[in-house]
């Protein structure tokens, strides 16, 4: 039964990739750069949230500190381009490794805390990093880094006239991160993660080193999140502390995942599919008024989803599947009896 499900999931995954590869060829998308923008953001936010999902969903450690790693990745790429005037790639790699180190250093003491205490500690860390980056002269403080005009192409990962290469870049990011999580989900490591989430003491009693598991999950998650940050800054041409290192950004990681369904492979994608078009289109429709109408609607929707379906969209889907399954069993029963 499990094998059959896995096969179905695999099929779904390959179909999804093919569909996503073909998206830029839809005439409506090809003609409209705003639609492309929405698709890019969906893939980016799905990837970000999937990175968070490793620690927050599978391992159950709800971290609100991921904007720190996102920001470090973004600043890594930004510093390489703006301050050193080279391609962003070395910056991206150094930034990601740095994010990993920072993640381990700040998480090790924080993992002693449980539940809301852990969440609030990660809030505090985000605020500290935000204030420090605001006054750090070397990274231009609150002014932020503005990209100069550079040659377009994959070496600089910058394009001005078209968004299609960004789309494929986001797709590569998306495929990589989702594949990693797909691999982990069926791997021994994934079972360890879920064991720690369900009951840490029992997991430890069966011989799992819970601190090591949590730390490695956090390091992996931070590494991937910082890649997303680097992509964000390459797409945005600008980075400043409130943009990448604030509680608002941290909340996005959590919201998208929880909305879709935490601890599930397709949850982050579903969450992003719903949240991002909503955010972008309401912004276009009402954001120009400068009166926060779009954000009010956005907040209202979050409340509505949390109140009606706290397990997220995946919870809704699973409920439906279970309902169908039980119906099948019930309808099959009389035949067995007779």
């Amino acid at each position, binding site marked *: 039964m499990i094998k059959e499900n896995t096969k179905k999931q695999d099929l779904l995954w390959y179909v999804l990739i093919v569909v996503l590869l073909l998206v830029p060829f839809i005439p409506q998308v090809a003609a409209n750069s705003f639609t492309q923008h929405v698709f890019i953001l969906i893939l980016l936010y799905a990837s970000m949230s999937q990175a968070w999902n490793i620690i927050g969903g599978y391992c159950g450690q709800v971290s609100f500190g991921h904007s720190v790693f996102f920001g470090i990745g973004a600043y890594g790429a930004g510093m390489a381009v703006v301050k050193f005037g080279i391609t962003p790639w070395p910056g991206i790699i150094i930034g990601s490794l740095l994010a990993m180190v920072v993640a381990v250093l700040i998480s090790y003491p924080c993992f002693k805390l449980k539940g*809301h205490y852990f969440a*609030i500690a990660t*809030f505090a860390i985000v*605020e*500290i990093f935000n204030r420090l980056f605001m006054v750090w002269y070397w990274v231009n403080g609150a002014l932020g880094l503005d990209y100069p005009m550079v040659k377009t192409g994959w070496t600089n990962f910058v394009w001005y006239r078209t968004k299609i290469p960004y789309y494929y870049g986001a797709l590569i990011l998306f495929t990589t991160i989702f594949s990693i999580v797909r691999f982990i989900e069926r791997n021994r490591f994934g079972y360890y993660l879920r064991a720690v989430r369900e009951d840490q003491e029992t997991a430890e009693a069966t011989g799992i080193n819970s601190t090591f598991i949590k730390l490695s999950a956090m390091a992996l998650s931070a590494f991937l999140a910082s890649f997303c940050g680097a992509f964000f800054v390459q797409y945005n041409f600008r980075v400043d502390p409130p943009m990448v290192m604030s509680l608002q950004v941290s909340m996005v990681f959590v919201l998208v995942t*929880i909305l879709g369904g*935490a601890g599930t492979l397709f949850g982050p994608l579903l969450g992003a599919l719903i949240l991002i078009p909503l955010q972008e289109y309401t912004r276009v429709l009402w954001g120009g008024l400068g*009166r926060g109408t779009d954000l009010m609607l956005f907040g209202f929707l979050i409340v509505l989803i*949390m*109140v009606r379906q706290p397990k997220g969209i995946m919870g809704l889907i699973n409920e439906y599947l279970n309902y169908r399954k039980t119906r099948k069993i019930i309808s099959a029963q009389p035949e067995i009896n007779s």
Partner: protein
Amino acid sequence: MTMFFQVAIDGLLTGMVYALVASGLSLIWGVMDVLNFAHGEFLMLGMYVSYWLGFLINFDPLISWIASGVFCFLLGILTYKLIIHHCLLGPPLSALLATFGLSMILKNFALNRFSPNYRLLTGTLLDGKRTLIGNIVLPMPQLITSIFALVVVFIIYYVIKRTRLGWAIQATAMDKEAAELMGINTERIFLLVFGLGGLCVGVAGGLLPSYLAVHPEVGGLFGLIAFVCVAMGGFGSIPGALLAALLIGLVEALGGFYIAPVFKYVVVFGLYLLVVMLKPKGLFGW
């Protein structure tokens, strides 16, 4: 040395207001295990109520705190009925995210209706008055607000510890099922606790506009500091929250003065992390 005492006193006065905001949050957290993310926004709305009463019909904040307290009490009850009540069945995070959504609604509602301008109530009864103790200047608005906040915190603490209602609240916090078996209507207690949490911020918000400008983002920092106070004080402990709030006010003022104003919150949050590393359950937690 005068300077040191002056800064320290200022910090303590701010800390007392933090204490009132934090004790409302602490109550909700302690009884329901819910983090109310919209707490700062409740404060912001309370401040607006007091500001508009003062601006439109010349009510002094010394009177209009009653109105904003009642307003936030009702807001809390409404929030519980419409949102939190449904989230308690789900995973623990859902209430936090729902209140985050609520905070977005309230913040942008204020932005929509009242514009992002900073508004300060001038010409109040206490405006510009001050007393001197030795060389230390005590501005009257801050002093009265802080003493008032402290009194309200003590009243809330007294109610929790000494009255039948308070015992019911404590029983519900300890064990919901057992409390129900003892004939306590826990649903009503939850409702009341959320209302009381709102009342605390409402009273604080009612008094603040006489010296602190109101704008839609004012609640954000207060809310965050209240979180830190509560977590530092320990799970649902009002004395803990009070102590933590005074400590944070003190550290914020001294850090801002002696290190650099930009670093004052770095110092505050750093102190919180330090305390929590040493005592993972907070100062008064168990």
